């Protein structure tokens, strides 16, 4: 086999791995660890951002938590239930890990998560029906502060809905609660968010 053949072979393998679904990768990772590397690649950025939003930890702390999350995911690969989306399952593990780290991490200095784009703010103000009441630029600057003032479960569910763009079924699987409870919790969370906004205004 020439060097060129080997290189083409590697590219072909890499392409075929990228073509696999998360669920297929999870099955393959049980046989070969390198497939698990692909899972890490796919979820690293999303989960880092999610961890920072729900816990306000620094990037370094978020990476530490994420390392533990991936180790836990690897250990529990055989527990993955096909009836779930892999993304719901990995977010659930991540959320649980953040909760278990929450107490000790809460005392540490907090960092602001990343900047939000204009479309996101447009979406959230429209969905929460607060377009007329608040200046978008102001909301963009202060949304994390407002979220921090909410009940922890309310903050959690709003982040999943508006930042992670999860649907109700996914939120139900991540937070391990019935769909009906998700709907009522979402309503209460939106109500509290609006209330905080009105207080600020």
């Amino acid at each position, binding site marked *: 086999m020439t060097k060129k053949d080997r290189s083409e072979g590697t590219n072909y393998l890499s392409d075929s791995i990228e073509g696999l679904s998360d669920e297929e990768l999870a099955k393959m990772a049980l046989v070969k*660890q390198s497939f698990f590397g692909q899972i*890490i690649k796919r979820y690293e*950025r999303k989960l880092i951002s999610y961890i920072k939003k729900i816990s306000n930890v620094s990037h370094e702390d978020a990476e530490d938590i994420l*390392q533990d999350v*991936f*180790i836990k995911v690897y250990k*529990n690969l*055989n527990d993955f239930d096909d009836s779930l989306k892999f993304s719901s399952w990995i977010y659930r593990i991540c959320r649980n890990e953040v909760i278990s780290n929450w107490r000790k991490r809460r005392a540490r200095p907090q960092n602001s998560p990343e900047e939000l784009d204009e479309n996101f703010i447009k979406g959230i103000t429209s969905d929460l029906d607060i377009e007329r009441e608040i200046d978008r630029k102001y909301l963009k600057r202060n949304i994390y502060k407002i979220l921090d003032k909410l009940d922890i479960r309310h903050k959690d569910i709003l982040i999943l809905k508006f930042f992670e763009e999860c649907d109700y079924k996914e939120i*139900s699987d991540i937070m391990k609660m019935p769909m*009906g409870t998700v709907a009522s919790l979402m309503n209460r969370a939106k109500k509290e968010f609006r209330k905080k906004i009105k207080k600020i205004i």
Partner: protein
Amino acid sequence: MTKNLEQTVLEKIKKENIKPEPKWKFLLKNCTLWFFAGASLVFGSMIFSVILYMTLNDWSALRHLGGGKFKFIMMGLPYFWIILLAIFIAVVHYNFRNTKKGYKYRLPIIILISVVASVLLGGVLYKAGIGKGLDDFTAKRAAFYRKIVNKRIDLWHRPEEGFLAGVIISDIEKNNFQLEDFKGDAWGVIMEDAVIMPEIKIKRNERIKMIGKFLGDYNFEARRIMPMGPGRDWFRNNPEARRFFRKRKPPFSR
């Protein structure tokens, strides 16, 4: 950043020889939760059969009470078993909720299904005599039976109000017999016009309860005689009851 974290995690997995937990462990965990949920449901049903046995038994007597029916019902409710049933339903909920898909169901739905299943299975177990058997078993062994499990025994020891229960300790002579109540006191009972429930035969050692009239000086006129039902094995078999009967005054023989 991406490369670093991926490498760090994979290296850690390799270095610490971390392996995915075997599938059977997760299956075992899930099966254990289902097993405990199922077992708690069966125990809950058995408890419900005792509740049925205890409440239905006094139902016929209720019609023959004058006033104070509500008080009688409230005093006679088997609170011990009701609390125990609630605990088992909570255990069913806890175990079911922690199974793989248990979180998809709302608390009131799980509670409702547990209660309905306990009632249906409990009804079948009651018909099969499990309620009676479990009450007899507890009555014989639990030292706190009279004080906590079955307060009805006290309910049927209010001779001045027309309620008396105990063990027949003599042969029947001219519609009269002697009865020993749970405190060890002997009573002369007249049963001339009494309605006797078909389930019992008035004979020595029979455990009965009566609605009637207090005639004073340890004499009682029975108007309705019923089998003791719940708590029948408490008399003389329970450690607490034995202490009472040991203190019994002579000359009454068993």
